[in-house]
């Protein structure tokens, strides 16, 4: 083993990072061999991002040391990391969307290289690895998958010895993910080590030779993923038993159409936004309808139109048989429709305001006792807040904290609770569990299922296919502003939906 340790590409030795008394990383040990695909597993907030930021030089560790090819190194900034041979593909891409592909890549290259040379090299490398790119394209015209290609090619041009990928498949279709894995396996064969950060267990098992599991900033286990089961990995990651969703009876015959969307078309708000093209569907009482799709394909525009943030011709959107396309958000709420938007902070809740004030923001005009004339009744708001936090198990630091002090999962529970407490007829949720820890996510999904059981019609827009397959009765897919027809969830599968995400609504020849 001593022989082996000399060959380690990277060794982390007791790395710690503190924010005040909070330990983001607590004595992390990790080692990677050349050519190894190593998984870093953990929930949101487990400390994965903090750790890789230190590896990439954007953060400095408070304790511990980093050994690179057996030598102690101090990675002061990302440029030094790149010089060592560490490349990084970020989860939220670090691209400049007003610049071209070549300009984006040039910014990460040594200063003496000409843009024209970089263009040639990037197109050559992208061809070689099956990641086709045009050097002159502007980033904001590219799909999310293509943007990731830019990041990967940018790393490959620097011929890294270690490539770090942060949640690379969260924005990809299953097919795109497979293509990515092929590239990663090829790189690994060529001797490039890969640190693969994810919370998706299936892909870690399929791709990675070793895994380090983080929980609350500490390493809880090192294992070989192929020897584990998804459940055993999940238990190590989450710490306690995973909440299983209770199955339910679906599809009563007397179900009534609550939400009806007919011939809905809308233009994008700005030059960068996707427009909606002739969208038709309906959602009935007691069912959960799911809309899958990669971010940026018109889901946010659809949500804006359904919630009343943007108005349309009255007949395009109908709630319970009444045309509401021209009505405001509040008028739609008064008809029993509730909306939970994607951004918790800044859209669904005002970050600096207390929870009780945030209650007033969407519930005023619905609860008669929330206001007296023009004045807000804070006492009633606080009582309502207490009821919501109790019923939906919202954990908070003090009695009435500002919304921004809650964790993602707890705030999402609060926002959902606020919307559905009034006994909604129709609930429209955009990305219900994005950035939410596994425990809260399971609870949120259970809440939606319980809600459907009470007879509410529920529309869930999500990028998380697993989630949609778990909770929805019928599924449709959005691609480039168009919506595929809904099909019963039981009669479709991930591959079929994945294909539709790329805009192929009817199975076409040559598609794999």
């Amino acid at each position, binding site marked *: 083993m001593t022989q082996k340790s000399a060959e380690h590409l990277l060794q982390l030795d007791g790395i710690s990072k503190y924010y005040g008394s909070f330990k983001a990383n607590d004595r992390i040990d990790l080692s990677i061999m050349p050519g190894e695909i190593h998984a870093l597993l953990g929930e949101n907030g487990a400390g994965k991002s903090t750790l890789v*930021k230190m590896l*990439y*030089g*954007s*953060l*400095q560790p408070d304790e511990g040391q980093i050994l690179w090819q057996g030598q102690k190194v101090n990675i002061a*900034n*990302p*440029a*030094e*990391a*790149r010089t060592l041979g560490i490349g*990084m593909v*970020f989860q939220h*891409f*670090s*691209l*400049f*969307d*007003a*610049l071209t592909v070549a*300009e*984006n890549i*040039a*910014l*990460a290259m040594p*200063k003496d290289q000409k843009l024209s040379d970089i263009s040639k090299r990037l197109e050559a490398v992208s061809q070689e690895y099956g990641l086709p790119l045009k050097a002159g394209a*502007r980033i*904001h015209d590219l799909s999310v998958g293509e943007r990731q290609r830019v990041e990967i090619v940018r790393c490959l041009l620097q011929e890294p010895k270690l490539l770090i990928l942060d949640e690379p498949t969260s924005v990809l279709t299953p097919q795109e993910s497979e293509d990515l894995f092929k590239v990663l396996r090829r790189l690994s064969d060529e001797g490039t080590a890969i640190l693969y950060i994810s919370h998706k267990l299936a892909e870690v098992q399929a791709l990675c030779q070793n895994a380090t599991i983080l929980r609350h900033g500490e390493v809880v286990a090192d294992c070989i993923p192929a020897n584990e089961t998804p459940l055993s990995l999940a238990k190590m990651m989450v710490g306690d038993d995973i909440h299983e969703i209770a199955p339910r009876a679906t599809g009563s015959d007397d179900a009534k159409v609550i939400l009806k969307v007919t011939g809905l078309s809308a233009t994008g708000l*700005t*030059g*960068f936004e996707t427009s909606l093209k002739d969208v038709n569907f309906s959602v009935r009482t007691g069912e959960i309808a799911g809309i899958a799709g990669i971010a940026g394909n018109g889901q946010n525009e659809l949500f804006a139109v359904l919630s009343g943030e943007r108005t349309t011709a009255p007949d395009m959107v109908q709630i319970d048989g009444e045309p509401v396309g021209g009505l405001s958000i509040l008028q739609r709420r008064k008809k029993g429709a509730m909306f939970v938007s994607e951004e918790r902070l800044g859209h669904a809740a005002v970050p600096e305001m207390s929870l009780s004030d945030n209650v007033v923001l969407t519930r005023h005009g619905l609860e008669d006792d929330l206001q007296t004339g023009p004045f807000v009744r804070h006492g009633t708001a606080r009582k309502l807040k207490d009821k919501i936090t109790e019923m939906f198990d919202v954990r908070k630091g003090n009695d009435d904290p500002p919304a921004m002090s809650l964790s993602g999962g707890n705030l999402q529970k609060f926002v959902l609770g606020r919307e559905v407490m009034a006994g909604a007829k129709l609930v429209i949720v955009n990305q219900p569990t994005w950035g939410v820890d596994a425990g809260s996510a399971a609870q949120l999904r259970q809440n939606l299922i319980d809600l459907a059981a009470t007879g509410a019609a529920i529309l869930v827009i999500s990028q998380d296919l697993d989630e949609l397959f778990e909770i929805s009765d019928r599924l449709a897919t959005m691609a480039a502003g168009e919506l595929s027809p809904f099909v019963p969830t039981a009669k479709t599968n991930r591959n079929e939906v994945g294909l539709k995400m790329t805009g192929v609504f009817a199975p076409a020849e040559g598609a794999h």
Partner: protein
Amino acid sequence: MGMTEAILLTIATAATPLLIAAIGELVVERSGVLNLGVEGMMVMGAVGGFVIANLTGNPWIGILAAIALGALTSLLFGFLTLTLAANQVATGLSLTILGLGVSSLMGEKFVGQAGEKMGNLDIPILTDIPLVGPVIFGQDPIFYLSILLVVAVSWFLFRTRAGLTLRSIGNNHHSAHALGIPVLRYRYLAVMFGGACAGLAGGHLSLVYTPQWVENMTAGRGWIALALVVFASWRPARVLAGAYLFGAVSIGQLHAQALGIAVPSQLLTALPFLATIVVLVLISQNVRATLINTPAMLGRPFVPDR
């Protein structure tokens, strides 16, 4: 020299300070920083240039002093908004108020004194060519510098690596930081370049345009420069066009007033503003092109994580 030449020369003289201040602010804003203190830095340049030229008897030393004072004033803005991450709008407004006050104090003893005028170029034969001669070869040196600045800034922004880096910071400072680009260093340099330009523009006012010192002699030109940058959608060539359009309409309406045209004078005085805004808005109809050129980080403070 005929009437036409005279009008063309006055247009250039009126446009030059706007152009210089705007091209400086354009670089600042391309880096993602909004400095509303252009007026303040400009008036500091005007008073500094006048006082030093008056004391030394050399307008060139005055111009250098104007540039230095403008840059120094902008450094205060840089320290507050970049190092201390203060609100850029509030700080910029304060800088304007501060500049107007300090310049009045500094220039108190110099009000009404004779200034040192920087002479126009005079090349034998060339300057004597009718029409073309005085306009191309007979202007003040700062005019030529201003045109050179537009070309240089265009070339810098779109043809050099440092310019690409500057634009990338204005587009997304988080990504730039993640790539290891020293965001704040670039912004400091951009802010100081903007300050130097505003100072030079002020110096042009007090040493070339009207060689004297009057309190608040910038008379809102800094604000017009700021507006030009936005309406020109952050493109140097359009700033040039906007500045000259504004200059031309300003001079044109003066002549119209002198001729006694039956239009209320208030309307004529407002005409340069209206015309410039209308034209620049009309040429910015391409939403995509505007989005590409708009610095997405404009006015947002950057605090690197630790």
